[in-house]
């Protein structure tokens, strides 16, 4: 009997949480409700908790800014936390499409999650515009998957050329053992070798690892003149930089775009000095100023790409697209100057690369080219 009471109670909790709160949710959505026009819902899914949450937050700011500037009063943004995990992303996209009836989605942030959600977007004819999934495989996910960030295939090549042009010939790579790191490393090492340089070490670590001494010791023995860090985990990068200083490694340090994070400057301090970071564009000067004015901070990673992802969808809606299919068709015709550069999607839904080069000088990222 007691068991029964408890189970009834639990089911009650659900129903209360599930049903009673639902009307309340609608009144606090982030847009101004308009009576006459039909409301078009656009979804946002990305990590708002977990170790990649800082990317999700920064992208969300870009999206919010775009939404505010465009002033589309018939568009409503529905936000879901998908934690950068495949299973969560599939749940979130199902919820957004079937329950909220979104016609387009900004997201996911991580490549693995985007790849898991893409088949569902295709099946339901809902375009997904990822602001930050850089895996080359995202290109092959069908016509409903777009992104406003260039594929790793482009950045690896750019990084290899940059290091070679600066006169470095012996490259060591330190990358995270995940989709992103592995893909980037493959392109980087191949391009560098093709240019005539030598790849003397290529070591890997787990995302979030904070003891990288073993890999660094091996790297040190290989005597590289430049070390390229590919990571999307600020904690690991801070550890790697500090431990390089500890071990007395004197090679030049390059980093992928994930390294352009204030957390790394704070954490690593002196050790980060002189690090060169290749990053996808952090935004035009106009965008940076407007972001600064709105949030009192410089844009975080991929904020500009988030802005562009929403803007591309917003422009499609402005042109009168109301269904997923119409938005997809309009996206293929997109041609505008966004926050990260000129946005034109090719037949795979990819954009061409706009990269910046930063150098850490006196504890700050300074744009060098």
């Amino acid at each position, binding site marked *: 009997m007691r068991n029964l009471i408890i189970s009834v109670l639990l089911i009650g909790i659900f129903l209360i949480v599930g049903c009673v709160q639902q009307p*309340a949710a609608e009144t606090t959505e982030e847009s101004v409700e308009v009576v006459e026009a039909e409301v078009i819902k656009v979804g946002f899914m990305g990590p708002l908790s977990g170790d990649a949450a800082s990317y999700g937050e920064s992208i969300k700011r870009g999206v919010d800014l775009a939404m505010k500037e465009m002033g589309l009063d018939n568009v409503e943004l529905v936000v879901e936390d998908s934690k950068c995990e495949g299973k969560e992303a599939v749940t979130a996209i199902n919820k957004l499409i*079937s329950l909220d009836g979104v016609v387009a989605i900004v997201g996911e942030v991580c490549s693995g999650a985007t790849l898991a959600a893409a088949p569902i977007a295709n099946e339901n004819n809902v375009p997904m515009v990822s602001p930050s999934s850089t895996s080359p495989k995202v290109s092959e996910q069908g016509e409903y998957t777009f992104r406003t960030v260039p594929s790793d295939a482009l950045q690896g090549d750019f990084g290899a050329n940059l290091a070679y042009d600066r006169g470095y010939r012996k490259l060591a790579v330190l990358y995270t053992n995940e989709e992103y790191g592995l893909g980037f490393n493959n392109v980087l090492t191949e391009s560098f070798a093709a240019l005539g340089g030598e790849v003397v070490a290529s070591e890997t670590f787990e995302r979030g690892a904070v003891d990288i001494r073993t890999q660094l010791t091996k790297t040190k023995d290989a005597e590289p003149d430049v070390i390229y860090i590919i990571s999307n985990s600020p904690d690991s990068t801070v550890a790697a930089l500090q431990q390089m200083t500890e071990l007395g490694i004197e090679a030049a340090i390059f980093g992928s775009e994930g390294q352009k994070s204030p957390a790394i400057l704070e954490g690593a301090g002196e050790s980060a000095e002189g690090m060169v970071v290749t990053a996808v564009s952090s935004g035009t000067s106009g965008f940076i100023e407007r972001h600064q004015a709105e949030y009192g901070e410089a844009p975080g990673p991929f904020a500009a790409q988030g802005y562009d992802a929403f803007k591309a969808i917003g422009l499609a809606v402005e042109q009168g697209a109301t269904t997923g299919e119409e938005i997809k068709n309009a996206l293929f015709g997109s041609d505008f100057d966004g926050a990260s550069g000129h946005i034109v999607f090719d037949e795979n839904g990819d954009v061409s690369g706009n990269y910046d080069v930063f150098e850490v000088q006196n504890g700050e990222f300074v744009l060098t080219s």
Partner: protein
Amino acid sequence: MIWPYLTHLLILIGIYVILTVSLNLALGYTGLLNLGHVAFFGIGAYTSALLTKAGVPFLLAFIIAGIFASIFGYLLVLATRKLKGDYLALATLGFSFVIYSLMLNWTGLTRGPLGIPGIEKPSFFGLTISSTYSYLIFVAVICILSVFVIYRIVKSPFGRLLEATRDDEMGLRVLGKNTFKLKYKAMMISAFFAGIAGSLFAHYITYIDPSYFTIPEIILLLSIVIVGGIASIKGSIVSTFVILLIPEALRFLALSSSILGPARQVIYAMILLGILLLRPRGIFGRVDLE
């Protein structure tokens, strides 16, 4: 339309019911504090995905996924036969890490962190399960069959021996029973069902990578079993619904998007704590594990 979303959740719940009920067989009924269940899940997922990619028919790959996981179950018990309690827990946790590392680093076979994309939907006897509705029916059939089989096992004389192994292993050995044999049999059955759950998961999500089979997943499975109650099939089933649906219900809370991520997790944790404070042995728990 709410149905595609609910269908998706029910499919996940079906897969997790198989996983947690089978975990309960080893952990609750037999008293093997097994933290390696997620490895069997992963082995099943990878085996089935790789076999169908190589052209093996789905049903065969599905069965082999279970059998393959089952073999690993035997090996795990064999390797840890002298351990129990906390020590067994630690050793089986190690087993999860070993399998995870294999998936991550044996890139020639598993493509490592790149994962396996484009796993095909199941097809057998000339029909392909492509829509999520038919997949739900398929999962429901397998789930009911699995739960039924495990239910019959725990209610059989063999099941009583398993419970005796948990409560008084020494006593059972005095009576001349081979407890090692009981343990590996229980573990093999448990691993078999985890393996087929893995296969169901892989062919549903169609993209797997090693990150699915790590610590957070172990914690999820354990909390479902513990919240449901040790050695209670009914408990595991109810608790799977509760634990998988609470975070979904919380999606509808009127939270501002700036605190949405963390707030959902805090509330989720508080509900779990609340359940365990009210029912220290879980919702339908009967026994304590030492």
